[in-house]
């Protein structure tokens, strides 16, 4: 009788937690094989909105592949990925990367991938959610209106650059920035795109201690103050762990929980 009551309490507690924190990402039985090698095998993962999770694993264990599936760049052999962002649910496996990005998923690439011929400000401005649907025809026929919208987006871009401490380098060409500065511009780009779920592929790679601390401070701030949901792949787990609520190890296609804070 006591056991039943305990189970009941546990169920109620779980439901209460889910009500308070709705899920943002849910993968079910995700399977993917490359050339006979099973990279992911029945992978299940749920992230609550506003949660930060750290994903570890050996090189080649499938961490980046998982990020590629979540971004819509690779279709899994089986299983489903659902995103629940901005009050809408989207099935990732049947959507284009563009649609997934517009639904609220943003990605910090391992190799950063800023637009090298553009300034830091234009890099951020290009991600403006409000300008993505403006066609060439609109740009020609409604020129004054579009310019006005662009001015608003530009102010927002400057604000986002200021949030990551890059306001003074807004006119610098992206290929002239240091790695740490590039990563900060890339974070401002995610803010500009209004992404709620961030996939961060090795955010600390290639950074010295000072720059890494700065990126960590920013990520913690965007997670706690801005409520961004984060899935972080990072080899320097001891540095990243303090800002992540849960930690998983990916091996042989399965996720193993390592710690719960």
């Amino acid at each position, binding site marked *: 009788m006591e056991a039943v009551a305990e189970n009941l309490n546990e169920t109620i507690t779980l439901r209460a937690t889910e009500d308070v924190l709705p899920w943002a990402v849910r993968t079910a039985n995700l399977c993917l094989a490359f050339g006979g090698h099973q990279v992911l095998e029945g992978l299940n993962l749920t992230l609550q909105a506003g949660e930060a999770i750290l994903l570890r694993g050996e090189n080649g264990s499938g961490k980046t592949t998982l990020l590629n599936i979540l*971004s819509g*760049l690779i279709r899994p052999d089986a299983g489903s990925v659902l995103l629940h962002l901005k009050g809408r649910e989207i099935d990732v496996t049947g959507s*284009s*990367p*563009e*649609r997934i*990005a*517009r639904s609220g998923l*943003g*990605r910090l*690439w391992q190799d950063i*991938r*800023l*637009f*090298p*011929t*553009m300034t830091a400000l*234009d890099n951020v*401005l*290009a*991600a*403006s*959610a409000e*300008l*993505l*649907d*403006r*066609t*060439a*025809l*609109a*740009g*020609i026929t409604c*020129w004054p209106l*579009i310019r006005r*919208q*662009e001015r608003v987006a530009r102010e927002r871009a400057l604000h986002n650059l200021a949030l990551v401490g890059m306001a003074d380098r807004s006119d610098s060409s992206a290929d002239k920035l240091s790695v740490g500065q590039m990563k900060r511009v890339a974070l401002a*780009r995610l803010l500009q*795109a209004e992404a709620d779920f961030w996939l961060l592929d090795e955010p600390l790679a290639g950074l010295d201690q000072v720059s890494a601390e700065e990126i960590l401070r920013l990520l913690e701030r965007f997670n706690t103050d801005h409520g961004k949901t984060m899935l972080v792949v990072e080899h320097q787990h001891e540095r990243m762990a303090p800002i992540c609520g849960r930690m998983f190890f990916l091996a042989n296609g399965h996720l193993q929980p390592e710690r719960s804070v």
Partner: protein
Amino acid sequence: MSYLLHLLIFFQIYAVVAMSLNLLIGYGGLLQVAHAAYFGVGAYTAALLWTKLGVGFIPGLLGAALMSSLLSLLVSLSAWRFRGDYFVMISLAVQVVLYSLMYNFMDITNGPYGITAIPKPVIMDSIFATQEATFAIYVVIVGMLAFILAAAKLSPFGLSLQAMRDDELAARSLGIPVRRLKVEAFMLASAMVGVAGGLYASYISYIDPTSFTLDESILMLSMVIVGGTGNVRGPLVGAAVLIAIPELLRFLSLPDTVAAHIRLLAYGLLLILMMHWRPQGLAGRYRFE
């Protein structure tokens, strides 16, 4: 004076060609080798509208823009996934197919005999028959086309296009609709070069398929590469240089049979030198790779 005006009118026409190609190559990173074919489609459409249906000068130019852009829509809808070498192959195929159609579609294009007696511009009962008048009306038309291109480039569409050129994957991951962008860029550039084709047909008053060959496409490409991409002045400089080269060769008094080959050799040599010494072109901003 009339020789200089003739060169200036040619410069106006090819300035539009080079600017429209720059939209694709310089801003979108989309290498196009079928531009002469779309130029020809514009020239034939306008010439047929003027000579067979008797429509006005401006409606004829609009018809040329519409036909060229619709054709590019058909191609780009099916070819948007391709980039780099594969995309170049597709545009090469388009060039060959459209040229063959112009050459063999006797009932409409009159095949190798071409279309003659294409009228001079007539706008609101005013005939622009002299070179001076043609130059003046072309200044207005080319100015409007340049404004349209500049407005498109300065708009969010232009910024997205540059983002796509720099890194298509990163652009897609930010929600930039690359498929729509490519289709729009091709439609806009083809509409522009279609109008240029109409201006060419009206000025020359005779067209045949030999003006729209692959060689001509390579000449257009050379204008953009030599002048430079990614800004407004690059393609203008390129158009001026590539129009000037054959004129300068005239002073060498070469026999006609040799002059054409020398001209092609000069273009080839210039391209090789530019690629080696100045990949961004004479006045370009974006380094062409």
